[in-house]
């Protein structure tokens, strides 16, 4: 892929949960959305509007009913099974509201876990994990994440999300569990880290204060197909 290949392209994307009535409204309904490499966008929408579901479709965790999702030029849903998982592991990083760190594992192991399913050569894993944890400000990488503060957990989650140098980072309400001060610091970290590694960022939030941080803001209500 060329350097100008869009990090994300969505076209005519529609999804409703299995078992829903045929005439029920679409949970996800996006006509078109694209992110350039390294571009950062905020996706807003009311609670229950399908922001998280859209991110899971983009990550290839849920199949859409219609439409195309291209991540770094590749239709991720064209892959099946292990190939899609490998592609996701290599090209997409995810950050969650509740961090979803692996409990019982150290900060370093959480980052290494992301690398172990990627195509990054194994001999580079250790150094890369330590470097990233240093960048995000984790002084004790061997410590169990259960012993970390909320802010530190968020930092580990950010380091894990960018460990494979992904084309795209999906952040699903990353500051929802943080107080305003920590939320600002966390967003600073997410945005600056994505910038450093050259990853595009698609961040969902229903926090209005987040809007000022992004030059590009998209509302799910405005993305709907005609």
């Amino acid at each position, binding site marked *: 892929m060329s350097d100008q290949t869009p990090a994300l392209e969505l076209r005519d994307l529609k999804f409703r949960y299995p078992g829903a009535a045929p005439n029920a409204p679409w949970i996800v309904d996006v006509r078109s959305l694209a992110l350039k490499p390294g571009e950062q966008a905020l996706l807003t929408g009311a609670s229950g509007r399908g922001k*998280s*579901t859209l991110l*899971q479709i983009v*990550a290839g*965790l*849920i199949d859409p009913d219609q439409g195309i999702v291209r991540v770094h030029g590749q239709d991720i849903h064209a892959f099946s*099974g*292990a190939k899609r*998982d*490998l592609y*996701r*592991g*290599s090209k997409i990083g*995810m950050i*969650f*509201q*509740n961090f*979803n*760190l*692996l*409990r*019982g*594992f150290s900060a370093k*192991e959480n980052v*290494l*876990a*992301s*690398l*172990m*399913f*990627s195509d990054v050569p*194994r*001999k580079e*894993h*250790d150094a890369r994990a330590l470097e990233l944890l240093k960048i995000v400000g984790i002084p004790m990488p061997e410590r169990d994440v259960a012993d970390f503060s909320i802010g530190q957990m968020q930092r580990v989650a950010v380091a*894990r999300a960018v460990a494979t140098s992904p084309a795209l980072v999906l952040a699903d309400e990353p500051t*929802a*569990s943080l107080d305003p001060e920590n939320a600002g610091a966390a967003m600073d970290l997410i945005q600056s880290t994505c910038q450093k590694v050259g990853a595009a960022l698609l961040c969902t939030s229903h926090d209005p204060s987040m809007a000022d941080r992004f030059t590009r803001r998209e509302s799910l209500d405005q993305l709907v197909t005609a």
Partner: protein
Amino acid sequence: MAMTDWTIIRRSMSSRLFSTVTTVITVAIAVGLMLTLLSMRDSGRRAFERGSGNMHLLITADSSPLVSVLNGIFYANAPARPITPSKFNQLTNSFPAEYAIPTQLGDQYMGLPVLATTPEFFTKFSPNPDFKPGSAELGWSLAEGRIFEAPFEVVVGARAARESNVNVGDELALTHGMGEEAHIHRDFLYTVVGILEPTGASHDRSLFTDLTSSWIIHAHDRRKADNPDAGKPTEADLTDADKLITGILVRLPTRGDSNISSLLPTVGAQLRADPSITVAQPSEEIQSLFRIVGNIDQILIAMAAIVMLASAISIMLALYNSMEQRRRQIAVLRVLGCSRPRVFGLVVTESAIIGIIGGIAGYTVAFIGTRIVASVLKEKLGLVVEPVFDPQITFVVLVASIALAALAGLIPAAAAYRTSVARNLRPTD
């Protein structure tokens, strides 16, 4: 160091340490029980075979071949009917033999059997079933002293010496018979001239003396019953009526290194035609004895197999129950790029590892357990059992335990495989 599947499995096991340890213990008990039973069954059989050693036939006047073996080799009881010297001569002249050793049982010392025999018992008969024909190493060796050479000398088996606390140079009087009818031969004292090293056979709990002295004391008993003033008889006074024996240990000629004699069927048939004697082929009698108790073996082994199955079910339940707590971890791993088959493999591998650790622990349990059982058998019953783990059987049991554990992991692995990533990534609070 890069992270591997093993790191994930190890953490999963250590995060549920109590559950992991208890399932490992369950597998260990199951494997240990199975290996112990299999080992003790084979070792027990060998312990019984050890008594009959290199003899081919045992001739007695007992009621059945099995009774002959139990009395003549395992010293269960004093045989009720004797064999006369003329019968002994007639029998031993009727076939070629490497040895035909006369024995007489009837006396005891502190409850320990006394076998009167000839020195050939120690120079030709071997208590070792793996005896190599032509080998000078029969399996007898002395801890102290020497074999009896003259009348009224006694050699004491290793366990008998320990139990009766006798030493070389001690003098002892034997007891005739058992129970209320027993009486001590106070007029005749035997001198202990040797203590044997353990042979691992029933002979360890016996005392050995020569036939002549045994004939003399019994002749004296009979004569005193007729005439209380009768003096002590000498060897010269003995008549054929005094020179009774209760058994003949026979080994037929063999060829080369073989312990099997081609004459055995012919000689056996010839001897069995004589209704006044009982001819036992000890190895066959021991096998038939084990066939009788074999059903109990099979029941015990079946029970051990059920315990193994139960241990597999406990692994399955432990892993399946842990799935509730692990769904989020699995969902996170999936997001990070772990495929469904790899998640499946992680759970099955974890299950198999519990089987491997349990199997190794079970082998250790069996190794120690059999030695404890062997020690108890030796102490309480005088039965020397040397537990040996057949490498093939051990391998099969260990592989079976690992395979069962892996199979037990299939259902939890399927649950892990089907884990919904989207549902399990949602915030819980």
